[in-house]
């Protein structure tokens, strides 16, 4: 059987718009074939430069919004934080240019069948994929509280239209320029009361802190991790992190294929950057 298997789509996607939002760029792309099947938590991998580029590795972005029908057909939206040469190049593209996009990639946030009281926590532009998740949870009659943290006001991603999809929104900035001063995790220190499930996307330190709080409260924390990826599609084995599986064995799992969303209680946060003792296949 020599056929293509089903999976992500690779396409040249036209940029519909590129708007600056605080420190970020909000790109809308025509992405038929990707938009229709994307679920909250999925991401896309975008190549940088033209066919003779010197930057060969794809950059990965969580899908912010996916709209299957509209004036441009299926569209996806991503939030780009320009910090390296590659993300800066992508952030500088303008309407009508095309980007080579692969998606949707990775797993999606798991949605409980019954209504729940959910807390969604985003760090920086990590809040982006939480807004469509909030919509989905509300469709299931769940109560959705959101907390967004960032280093400063311009790095808080909480658009007006997104605020409508949550029942409450609290903001924390490290420099105090917006919301309360401090880290987003300070907002609910020992305070996971009346919460059934936590969804989180942001830096590793934030995810680890939330997993500790969640574990103490007996609440599941679904974490969307940010590991450095080369391909985004499971070929290169660079984006691995140690995760305990159902049988209790720690394995080096790819965040692009087995993730990016992991159960925070299963991720060996202190072992990231190491091969924890006892890991499957660890050097003897």
């Amino acid at each position, binding site marked *: *059987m*020599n*056929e*293509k*298997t*089903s*999976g*992500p789509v*690779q396409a040249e996607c036209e940029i519909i718009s590129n708007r600056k939002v605080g420190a970020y760029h909000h790109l809308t792309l025509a992405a038929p074939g990707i938009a229709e099947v994307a679920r909250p938590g999925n991401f896309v991998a975008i*190549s940088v430069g033209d*066919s*003779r*580029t*010197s*930057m*060969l*590795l*794809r950059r990965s972005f969580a899908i912010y919004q996916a709209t299957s029908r509209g004036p441009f057909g299926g569209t996806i939206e991503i939030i780009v934080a320009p910090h390296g040469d*590659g993300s800066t190049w992508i952030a500088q593209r303008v309407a009508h240019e095309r980007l*080579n996009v*692969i998606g949707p990639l990775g797993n999606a946030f798991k949605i409980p069948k019954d209504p729940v009281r959910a807390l969604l926590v985003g760090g920086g532009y990590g809040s982006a994929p939480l807004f469509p998740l909030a919509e989905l949870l509300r469709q299931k009659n769940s109560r959705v509280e959101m907390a967004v943290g960032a280093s400063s006001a311009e790095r808080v991603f909480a658009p007006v239209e997104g605020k409508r999809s949550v029942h409450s929104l609290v903001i924390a900035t490290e420099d105090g320029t917006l919301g309360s001063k401090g880290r987003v995790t300070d907002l609910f220190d020992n305070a996971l009361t009346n919460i059934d499930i936590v969804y989180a996307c942001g830096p590793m330190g934030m995810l680890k802190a939330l997993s500790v709080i969640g574990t103490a409260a007996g609440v599941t924390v679904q974490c969307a991790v940010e*590991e*450095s990826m*080369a*391909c985004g*599609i*499971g*070929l*290169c*084995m*660079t*984006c*691995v*992190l140690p995760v305990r599986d159902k049988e209790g064995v720690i*394995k*080096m799992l790819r965040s692009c*294929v087995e993730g990016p969303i992991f159960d925070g209680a299963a991720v060996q946060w202190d072992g*990231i*950057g*190491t*091969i924890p003792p006892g*890991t*499957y*296949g*660890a*050097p003897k």
Partner: protein
Amino acid sequence: MSTSSLDFTTQLGTALFPNPILTASGCAANGKELSAFFPLGDIGAVVTKSVMNHPRSGRATPRMAETPSGMLNAIGLQGPGIDNFLREDLPWLVEHGARTIVSIAGESVEEFAALSRKVRNAPGVSALEVNISCPNVENRGLVFACDRTSAREVIEAVKRSVGNSLPIIAKLSPDVTDIVSIAEEVISAGADGLAMINTLLGMVINTETMRPHLANKTGGLSGPAIRPVAVRAIFQVHQAMPKVPIVGMGGVLTGNDAFELVLAGASAISIGTATFHDPSAPIRIKQELEELLNSRGFTRFSDAVGYAHRSQS
């Protein structure tokens, strides 16, 4: 499909392939992920990720850094181990119509021998790649391809294990003074062909942390940055042993890049880092190379192999 009359077939030892485009070991996992982008049977063969005797976690992260026109990696041969590979990955490839070159890596001559005995008995294998040149091993002394005696011992042991049942392709490192002498050694030890080049050992220092970026400190450099090194190595070895088939690799991004390696003397081309950039690269490069050969008037791919060596006229 193509309407040209080009004979695109190529041969590595006794193994015949409908076209010369292969994946590169370590850049295509074991095929499954890539099959969403093109039918695996449309390329010459899938070269699987070098597999060891036992399951292996690989190295700590960071394992990768982007470099100018390339990348540095120190994955450390993360993989399922040969038994799981032969039980799950290989049958999947066979079922999905992929011709398969199985790549093996060992820490000792005995491990290579044991691995090759297991692969010999597995159905659906076109050839065996013996990766004696992975730079990400614990001890640089274990890079068998950097030492003539070690390289010979591994290939002799593999040859004793598989006999003539499978073509043996030895994967060589460019990090040697004289790659021709290593190539001659492994061919006289029983290899049927050569795969070259593996990555070059490199390092990136993060100027913010002011420490080596990779957890392993050093890593293997790949991508277009190393292509001239590949062209030189293939040219030198083909010149010394024009009848020995070479699987050429090193930063091939386009059909033109592949053609360059063919002119130097490669009988097949592995697409590696390009696949991370563009998972459709193997099938695109196959089409581009086919068009290029046609436009240059070649009717047989094999006539183009080593064409850069022809005498002046």
